[in-house]
């Protein structure tokens, strides 16, 4: 897909060592436009949207934050641990958003996912789940599968 210059500038910010040691694109050789489009299609196929996924994820983070680093059980199924680190990191999309360095780990009986506050913002506002191979890449299908485990139990 042809990428407009603005998106190209954002992609440049996403490379390793610009804003984050490991960058946001991992080993993905696709353009940012292609990464965004592929995940947009995946989310559409799941019958949801970026904001809805981010809202669910945010609820786990909020529950974990209250526990000050202690693992908590959410909805009697998920083990959630939230760790806060010193500092903040700017959103590579150049929207002046400063994400606190907060890491959330959510484990279900079958899988474990990690995300940062910046992940939540980028999913919610930009539909960006990071490139394949990126340290904090979260496949939207994996998020949906994690959330479905609770629905399956009901």
């Amino acid at each position, binding site marked *: 897909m042809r990428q407009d210059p603005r998106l190209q500038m954002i992609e440049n910010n996403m490379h390793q*060592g610009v804003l984050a040691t490991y960058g946001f694109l991992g080993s993905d050789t696709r353009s940012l436009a292609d990464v965004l489009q592929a995940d947009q299609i995946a989310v559409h196929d799941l019958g949801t949207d970026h904001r809805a996924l981010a809202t669910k994820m945010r609820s786990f983070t909020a529950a974990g934050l209250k*526990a*000050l680093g202690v693992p908590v059980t959410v909805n009697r199924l998920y083990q959630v641990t939230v760790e806060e680190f010193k500092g903040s990191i700017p959103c590579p999309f150049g929207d002046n958003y400063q994400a606190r360095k907060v890491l959330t780990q959510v484990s279900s009986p079958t899988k474990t996912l990690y995300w940062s506050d910046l992940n939540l913002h980028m999913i919610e506002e930009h539909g960006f789940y990071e490139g394949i191979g990126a340290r904090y890449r979260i496949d939207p299908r994996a998020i949906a599968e994690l959330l479905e485990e609770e629905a399956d139990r009901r």
Partner: protein
Amino acid sequence: MSIVLTVFSVSLISTILATLVVLADKVLNNYGECEIDINDGDKTFMVTGGSNLLSTLASSRIYIPSACGGKATCGLCKVRLGSEVGAVLPTEEPYLTKEEIDANVRLSCQVKVKSSLKLYIPEELFNVREYKAKIVRITRMTRDIKEFQFALVNPASVAFKAGQYIQVVTKPYANIKESVMRAYSISSLPTNNQELEIIVRLVPGGVCTTFMHEYLQEGDELSLRGPFGEFYLHEGGDTLVFIAGGSGLAPIKSMVFDILRQKLDKKLIFFFGAVTKQDLYYVDLFTKLDAEHDNFQYVPALSQPDISDEWEGEIGLITEVVGRYITDTADMQAYLCGSPGMIDACIRVLEKAGLSQADIYYDEF
């Protein structure tokens, strides 16, 4: 032949245009000599215009706090201007309150020096220096926390208050092409002024902490800037409560040791919260201090000790433990350092116990 002529013509035109751009840049962006006047004449000097105010001041050895090195991503480099420099930029807006904008406070990294400028900064910043320092010892404290001991090379000593912080200037490494600056509280005593000790927790993927934890070696030289910060002992308070978690222990260690060294007539209680025993550090140091000083009490607390920890100390979230201990807040001050979540929760507990917000000082991550 016509292809060669075309290529030659295009090249010639490109060269002429590039030359014009360079010349125009030199002429149009030549702001000449500008006078910088700080705090109504306390310090005045001439600079060459054209650069941002943060780097212009740094080149004149006036170091404004900055964690991002001028990328408008930390919001620390605020100065109040007494001159008009144009509208606030979109890059500054997230970091400035309405009151600050009304008072002409700006991010110095976003203000270009185009003419003479008047500005106001805290007087303490005149004492901030850049230090060359050598790493003399790196000690692992926990799975993700290391202690770094620096010997100052030039200047060879530093004056700071217990609780203040310095900025570490990293060097390019691996795929990191630029230096970055990050702030770390000083954990050593101000009297030991030829060395500095800091405590750094590894942030997964963090540019500076990765450098510190994985690339920095004993014997390496680094630049440090400081001291900065207003998190230090304030007047008053017969009883001082210190609460920390993780690397938030650093300024508290410096303050506690400094107060005990000065034999100040104060009662000190230090609460340190961790999840399991493997997240505790300096336990022997503070336990020994507790045994040696009648006016110092050390209360480490684990929120979720492992059975293998065989923990006999306090158990519970640090807020619960503080709540159990603090019932009388008369003549009390509290000093908190840790994550925003921990600090917010501790402030609520202390206020509930009757401590006024004015007596709670904190250094938030």
